[in-house]
């Protein structure tokens, strides 16, 4: 049970959603755009979050889009992960979205996984690799930006801004890919490593989460993976070093263990994609 009350908004358009945010914000309420609610409600029950207002985006058509248009595959931020998986137009995304359990995936939204507070954000990895464009709307109107420009460890939104959707070029969804997810015990656990790889125009791109504690895509990392002057066997270790980031080290998994898993995953990916 959630001990405090909140204001619930159900807009049917982007304009209404932005107006609702403005109204709630001006009333001094801690306001959240709300997709599946899985994270907001469990955090609220535990007292880790005290939302004063939630804005349910599931009745906004643009947030529930799942289609191909203009050579791009479009994914609404309000889609539950099972819809993304079963939509099937982006195989690496369909694989990366297999997190938590099947029942929760009927609610957990794509936007919630990417813009929520839990640090793993596994579904952002395929988008970081696929030249994704993020559609955003906020008090200053609607805009489309390359995802990499607004994602650094987390999605960097302006106050009151909503992630509407993400789109990727159709051609990239059809490129060779490789995926590894490692957990401590069962596949329902949070990951100790998730790594995604694609090969686009002969070049391997990698993105990973959990190893460093947050999603990472690094051009320095990719440069090493594709550097023909470096023996293939040395590239995993040197790519990790090139990223220049501290590997997470906690009770879930030690830094040494995560590094070994990541080196192994990179080695497997290079074997599969080179």
């Amino acid at each position, binding site marked *: 049970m959630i001990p405090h*009350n909140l204001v619930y908004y159900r807009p049917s358009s982007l304009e*209404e959603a932005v107006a*609702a945010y403005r109204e709630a914000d001006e009333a001094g309420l801690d306001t959240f755009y709300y997709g599946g609610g899985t994270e907001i*409600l469990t955090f609220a029950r535990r007292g880790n979050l005290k939302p004063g207002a*939630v804005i349910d985006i*599931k009745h906004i058509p643009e947030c529930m889009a799942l289609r191909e248009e203009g050579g791009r595959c479009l994914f609404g931020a309000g889609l539950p992960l099972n819809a993304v998986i079963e939509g099937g137009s982006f195989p690496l995304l369909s694989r990366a979205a297999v997190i938590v359990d099947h*029942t929760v995936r009927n609610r957990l939204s794509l936007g919630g996984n990417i813009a929520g507070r839990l640090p793993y954000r596994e579904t952002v990895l395929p988008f970081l690799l696929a030249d994704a464009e993020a559609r955003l709307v906020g008090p200053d109107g609607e805009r489309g930006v390359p995802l990499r420009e607004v994602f650094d460890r987390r999605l960097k939104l302006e106050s009151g801004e909503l992630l509407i959707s993400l789109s990727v070029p159709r051609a990239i969804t059809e490129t060779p890919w490789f995926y590894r997810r490692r957990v401590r015990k069962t596949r329902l656990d949070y990951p100790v490593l998730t790594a995604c790889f694609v090969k686009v125009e002969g070049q391997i791109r990698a993105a990973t989460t959990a190893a460093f504690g947050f999603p990472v895509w690094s051009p320095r990392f990719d440069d090493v993976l594709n550097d023909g002057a470096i023996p293939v066997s040395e590239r995993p270790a040197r790519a990790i070093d090139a990223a220049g980031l501290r590997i997470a080290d906690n009770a879930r998994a030690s830094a040494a263990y995560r590094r070994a898993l990541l080196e192994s995953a990179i080695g497997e990916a290079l074997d599969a994609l080179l």
Partner: protein
Amino acid sequence: MITYREYVALSLHINGEDRRVVVRPADTLLHVLRDGLGLTGTKVGCENGDCGACTVLVDGQPVKSCMVLAVEMEGSEITTIEGLHDTAIQRAFIQENGFQCGYCTSGFIVNAYALLKAHPNPDSDTIRTWLEGNLCRCTGYEGIERAVKAV
């Protein structure tokens, strides 16, 4: 735009009936089903989305009712364990000893019912994928898997 601030007189379609209930916007569907409507077959477990004891169907899809606001459910068809009567999966759970203490059973049956609607002859992988969100601390799951396969 619909806005709910304080108490709301909500109309929910549950187990084929229209039910009226007064809720707070912050009330979870689980809380409203049990304490507002007396549908106590839906069980309180972890209230954290982990155990599946509170699973109900929303428009035919299994959902953990502890992770849903009741106000989100307007216009949806909700099915709880009370809405299932002498179904094949219920009979199979009895026949195959798919339960012991019974606390998790309503969540398992509701989820398995939806699984069998979607996949009438599921293989073991499909059964495990669909039911992995339900925990049972008694049976070791074998009777549950046998029950699903027996339908």
